[in-house]
């Protein structure tokens, strides 16, 4: 029975019991539920559950070679998050994160666009509570903006699905060709969640406002679900190469000057999504393997980086680079895990990022789109700058902040340890990862030329960092707000829109006033006629006049009807 349920659904249903399970047992219960959900994956590829509603076939459980690696890593991320938040007694957050992971996993197995829409929206309404749980005014406001974007994405997806249903009657979620209104609506819906340029503001706005444990969960699911959706719906769509290349390069500059280290990681997340989007845009088997492999390892090392910064935030109470530094002695384990995450995301050989990113870079090289290849190479140096160096450097080294603290709770450390182990394990034994990719892999990342090229790129970029620091040319961290695309709707729209709205309301108010005067003038005239008619009796009130008018109208209609 359970094996035929869509994976993830059981995680959502299990949430209803969660408040009644005492702390610690709650974590064990959640791990058990995640394991049960993962058990459902053993049913293998195929269509396992279809409901027919209003003549539409809703494919609730469909699995194939593309959904499997995402499903595995989503379950793993959900389990890691449970371990990471072992100390947390706040059952509301656990409810939110378990149902959020469940919704994302269920979405992976939706075989039609309407089912996808349901889970797509479910990820939005469950995850927003992870931001709200921070309890601050900033978090509440960011959560509302986040929800606005997420729901808009869902509405666009539904609109696209509705057009497809009405035109072709086919709502199956398969490869689409970008062209008509329906496919564009669906493409933009995916693009919002994948944080395309100018649609990305919600990510850097909201993720850093969530709780330390909440951000870890957020980093795993929504954006990677969008990558999965793009890989299924729009593989080989050329425009994605342009969009993805912009995504890899632009956030790099923002991350350099951002002071909030979790926001730096949010920019970094955006940059990493760019690599995956480019790979989907290329659309060859090697490239799609690259996109999936990148998403897989990215979830682990990005979670590791967010976990290490979450641990610092949990212990210190701040995650501003300008307030941190010198924590390497106080939190040595967290520091080591953070550096492993940093080396993984930077794609050092023997770390997971290297074996995944190599697939995309090789696929891009094969296409002959050299400009994109060199943009991604440039972005690789950017990744090293903000995630490889800036994050560990400003948190654990830089200068002595004189902060007295210790290591994070044991659950946080265990989760970080597992993630760090996986980062190295996958990097050393890439065949483990390659064996679950959608297409057969005959790829060997560890050839001498490739390794030396990557090492040259990274080591000399690090050398540039050392030179800048030694010459005191590396910019110091400054408490600040860095404007991002959310500025358009947080500042520009109110600045332009509010005066505009006030102007419109002023004109409308004046119009209503004029109308009122005009109507009063008519009544006054009628009153005068009623009380001083030229001939005949006076009319006693307006009601009588209205009745007389209506009777006259009826009479007129009667005459017209009679012919």
């Amino acid at each position, binding site marked *: 029975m359970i094996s035929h349920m869509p994976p993830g659904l059981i995680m959502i249903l299990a949430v209803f019991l969660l408040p009644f399970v005492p702390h610690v047992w709650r974590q064990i219960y959640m791990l058990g539920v995640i394991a049960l959900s993962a058990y459902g994956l053993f049913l293998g590829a195929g269509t396992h559950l279809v409901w027919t509603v209003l003549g539409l076939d809703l494919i609730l459980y469909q699995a194939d070679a593309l959904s499997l690696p995402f499903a595995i890593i989503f379950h793993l991320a959900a389990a890691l998050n449970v371990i990471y938040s072992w100390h947390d007694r706040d059952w509301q957050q656990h409810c939110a994160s378990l149902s959020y992971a469940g919704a994302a996993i269920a979405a992976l197995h939706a075989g039609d666009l309407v089912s996808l829409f349901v889970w797509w929206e479910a990820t939005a309404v469950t995850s927003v509570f992870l931001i709200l749980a921070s309890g601050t005014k*900033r978090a509440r406001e960011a959560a509302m903006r986040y929800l606005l974007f997420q729901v808009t994405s869902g509405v666009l997806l539904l609109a696209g699905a509705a057009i497809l249903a009405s035109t072709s009657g086919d709502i199956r979620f398969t490869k689409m060709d970008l062209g008509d209104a329906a496919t564009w609506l669906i493409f933009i819906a995916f693009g919002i969640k994948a944080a395309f340029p100018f649609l990305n503001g919600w990510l850097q706005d909201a993720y850093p406002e969530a709780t330390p444990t909440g951000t870890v969960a957020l980093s795993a699911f929504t954006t990677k679900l969008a990558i999965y959706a793009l890989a299924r719906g729009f593989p080989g769509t050329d425009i994605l190469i342009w969009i993805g290349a912009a995504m890899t390069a632009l956030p*790099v*500059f*923002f991350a*350099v*000057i951002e002071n909030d280290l979790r926001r730096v990681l949010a920019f970094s997340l955006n940059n990493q999504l760019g690599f995956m989007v480019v790979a989907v845009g290329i659309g060859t088997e090697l490239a799609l393997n690259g996109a999936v492999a990148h998403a897989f390892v990215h979830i682990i090392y990005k979670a590791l980086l967010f976990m290490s910064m979450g641990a610092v935030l949990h212990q210190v109470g701040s995650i501003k680079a300008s307030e941190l530094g*010198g924590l*390497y*002695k106080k939190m040595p384990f967290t520091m080591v895990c953070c550096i492993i995450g940093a080396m993984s995301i930077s794609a050092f050989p023997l770390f997971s990022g290297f074996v995944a990113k190599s697939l995309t870079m090789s696929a*891009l*090289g094969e296409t002959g789109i*050299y400009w994109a*290849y060199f943009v991604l*190479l*440039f972005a690789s*140096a*950017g990744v*090293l*700058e903000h995630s490889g160096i800036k994050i560990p450097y400003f948190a654990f*080294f*830089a*200068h*002595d902040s*004189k902060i007295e603290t210790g290591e994070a709770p044991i659950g946080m450390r265990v989760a970080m340890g597992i993630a760090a182990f996986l980062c190295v394990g996958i990097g050393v034994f890439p065949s483990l990862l390659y064996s679950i990719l959608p297409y057969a892999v005959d790829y060997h990342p560890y050839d*001498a*030329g*490739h390794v*030396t*090229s*990557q*090492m*040259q*790129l*990274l*080591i*000399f*970029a*690090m*050398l*540039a*960092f*050392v030179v*800048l*620091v*030694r010459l*005191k*040319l*590396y*910019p*110091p961290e*400054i*408490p*600040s*707000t*860095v*404007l*991002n695309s959310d500025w358009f709707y*947080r*500042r520009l729209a109110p600045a332009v829109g509010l005066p505009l709205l006030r102007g419109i309301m002023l004109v409308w108010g004046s119009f209503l006033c004029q109308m009122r005067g005009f109507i009063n003038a008519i009544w006054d005239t009628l009153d005068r006629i009623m009380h001083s008619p030229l001939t005949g009796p006076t009319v006693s009130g307006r009601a009588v006049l209205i009745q007389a008018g209506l009777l006259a109208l009826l009479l007129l209609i009667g005459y017209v009807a009679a012919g």
Partner: protein
Amino acid sequence: MSTPSSKSPSDLQRLGGIFTKVLLGIVIVLFGLEFFIHRHGVVSAEESFMFPALYGFLAFLFIVQIGKWLRLMIMRKEDYYD
């Protein structure tokens, strides 16, 4: 970036010194390997002498410099949105 007034900053400086030496060691090794290992590139320029090294070094400097200019344009006070 560091203040030489307590014990920890000197520890940090010592760590920084070790890090720099190790890094320079790897730089020398990579320089030496360039004479023995043939790197494959997607374009011929990528196969030229120490190309990825130069690309990485310059890209890093470029990113930091653009970041400095960007600060003048898009950096606001911490309470800008409050």
